[in-house]
């Protein structure tokens, strides 16, 4: 394994030293959490719709191969051309070949996390094609030459002032203003011109309906509808897990997704795309392509426990509620998917050699599990990945890559001591006597005492006290 591992601790350290960033996230996430709570104040309704949505996703995953074949057949029947990509390189090559065939110079994009996974913008740029993000948040991040810091709100790490400066600096016609309406209007004017001239429009997919060959896309800004209707060619990309069985499976997802994500009752636009322009129709693209990406997902699918990772509907609520994410922000993860879902998905996609630390960037507080609209057992999967990281196996890429003999010995010694009452009693007596003499410079104690006082071992253990007080043993 030559790939170096990603250093989350280092990246998060930089984020923690940026008071503006911390304040931006704290304020934004507090707001999102309270807005979501209002949406789900009715606990019975929440439990009902959540159980329904989870069962929709579980049912889809239980027959995934069959549904994907059905999706391909029905899309093809509808005139949507389906392409399969097992890697991001293959997906990029497919997109490029379509664009080269139609001699595309400019592509406008709606929000798509899969294209982030593919690093598509950079790839297209290398091939002389301008790829423009049209979701406002994505547009801001692209202007800033940065990555999205949240899967739903890509520019959530910035405040209005920072965006105002960015626009002034990067957009020729911009005059400095901190007025949100004026900033939005400026972006809209720039983007409208591009929509009119783009050769290709791209989008993601929130759910693909196998029975009808329908691509569902929800969005707030109308840019998704523009991308999928104005340019002559539309290319949609999706991860292979995004399929659902039937049309009735869609409402619980489009009800839960925006309510969980931003606390909105519904998104402004719900697009259901079933075919390219038909003879006699006055608008719509002449070609629609659907690129279905694997990128490690079928490996996730193969394990009955890890498979639950694929239930995700990408609402981002787990990020909003994660006490780690809300402190360090999305960039610290250096991954297309940050936060709790990223911590379980990315290591499975990219392997534990590179991403083995991600599942440890978590206190296992379960705040994400509590609010996940499709009941993904995120923390259980996190625990499983921690085990995979230190034990050789074949369920996850690079399993065992993080194992160290020293750590394994520590745990072996610990278990031997703690599983034997005699050894345990001896060890605790020793710690009670000598433990407090340990210098704060020792590894682990050093990290602890960075901001905390040293914990003090009690002179007598609870075992001692119970014995002395005559508490019966049997």
């Amino acid at each position: 394994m030559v790939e170096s591992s990603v250093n989350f601790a280092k990246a998060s350290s930089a984020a923690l030293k940026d008071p503006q960033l911390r304040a931006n996230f704290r304020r934004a996430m507090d707001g999102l959490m309270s807005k979501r709570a209002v949406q789900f104040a009715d606990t019975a309704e929440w439990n009902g719709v959540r159980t329904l949505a989870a069962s929709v996703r579980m049912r889809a995953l239980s027959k995934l191969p069959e549904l994907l074949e059905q999706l391909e057949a029905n899309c093809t029947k509808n005139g949507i051309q389906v392409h399969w990509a097992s890697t991001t390189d293959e997906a990029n090559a497919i997109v490029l070949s379509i664009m080269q065939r139609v001699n595309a110079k400019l592509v406008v994009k709606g929000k798509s996390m899969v294209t982030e996974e593919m690093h598509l913008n950079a790839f297209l740029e290398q091939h002389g094609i301008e790829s423009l993000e049209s979701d406002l948040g994505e547009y801001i991040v692209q202007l800033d030459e940065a990555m999205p810091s949240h899967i739903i709100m890509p520019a959530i790490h910035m405040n209005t002032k920072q965006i105002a400066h960015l626009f002034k600096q990067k957009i020729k016609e911009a005059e400095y203003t901190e007025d949100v309406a004026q900033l939005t209007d400026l972006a809209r004017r720039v983007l409208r011109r591009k929509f009119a001239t783009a050769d290709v429009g791209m989008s993601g997919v929130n759910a693909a309906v196998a029975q009808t060959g329908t691509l569902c896309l929800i969005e707030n800004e109308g840019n998704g509808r523009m991308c999928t209707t104005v340019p002559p060619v539309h290319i949609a990309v999706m991860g292979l897990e995004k399929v659902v069985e039937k049309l009735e499976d869609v409402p619980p997802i489009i009800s839960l997704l925006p309510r969980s994500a931003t606390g909105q009752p519904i998104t402004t636009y719900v697009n259901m795309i079933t075919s390219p322009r038909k003879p006699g129709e006055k608008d719509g693209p002449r070609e629609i392509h659907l690129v279905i990406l694997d990128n490690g997902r079928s490996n996730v699918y193969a394990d009955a426990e890890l498979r639950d990772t694929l239930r995700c509907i990408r609402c981002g609520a787990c990020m909003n509620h994660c006490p780690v994410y809300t402190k360090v922000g999305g960039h610290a993860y250096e991954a297309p998917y940050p936060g709790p879902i990223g911590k379980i998905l990315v290591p499975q996609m990219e392997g534990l050699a590179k991403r083995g630390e991600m599942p440890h960037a978590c206190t296992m507080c379960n705040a994400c599990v509590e609010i996940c609209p499709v009941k993904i057992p995120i923390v259980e999967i996190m625990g499983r990945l921690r085990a995979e990281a230190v034990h050789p196996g074949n369920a996850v890429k690079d399993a065992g890559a993080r194992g160290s003999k020293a750590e394994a010995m520590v745990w072996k010694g610990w278990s031997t001591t703690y599983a034997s009452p005699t050894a345990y009693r001896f060890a605790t007596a020793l710690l009670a006597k000598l433990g407090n003499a340990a210098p704060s410079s020792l590894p682990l104690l050093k990290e602890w005492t960075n901001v905390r006082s040293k914990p003090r071992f009690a002179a007598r253990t609870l075992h001692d006290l119970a014995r002395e007080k005559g508490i019966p043993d049997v």
Partner: protein
Amino acid sequence: MEQSTRAIPPRPESVYYFGTCLVDLFYPEAGMAGIDLLKAQGIRVVFPQGQSCCGQPAYNSGYRDEALKVARAQLDFFPGDWPIVVPSGSCAGMMHKHWPDLFKGEPDEARARQVAARVWELTQFLVHVLNVTFEDQGEPVRITWHASCHAQREMGVVDEPKALLRQLANVELVELQREKECCGFGGTFAVRHPEISAAMVGDKVADIEGTGAKSVVSGDCGCLMNINGALDAGQKPVRGVHIAQFLKERTNG
């Protein structure tokens, strides 16, 4: 995670007490206070001297075989069918919720499940099984409550501790703004990611200070070790105290 909907057993004559390894070494007084609270209700409390740890540290670090070995060693010490009361939501959660998974497919799975089903977090047991009522003997004081993540989200213990604290006439309970937010302990997380942990406990300390409380009461010694460590290092006058110790001090001195 849904609120616990488990069946409430009849009031037992005896209970087992599982003290937890953290309480054993660092907070034995809190552990004894829990025993005393149960005894004051006329319950016979059995503290098996062979007990050590629920196995959570190894389990959460990815060393499941080692966790299993330690968890398995506990099973022998709780042979009766009495409830097992634990003064920690986190260790109770490990036993009640995770042991069935940990022992899955093992020859002693049925036995482990039987033990796990009898595990109760202390305040959950005091409220639901013993229906305790406390009479406050202390001076007027303002306190706040920190909810442990695993008590809330694994054991479904949310309102029980606060209901007990509200029984105390001279205690003013001011809730934290972000009561349910993790304090940043997370076991090995605190030393694997010390800077993030520091930021988290920093936010928690600021929230505690904002209440003007004299004490922050909690039900888990992991949280308390973290929060008290930060309060002490920051030379703040507030201190954290385990709910068992607080209740005992308020009710019979």
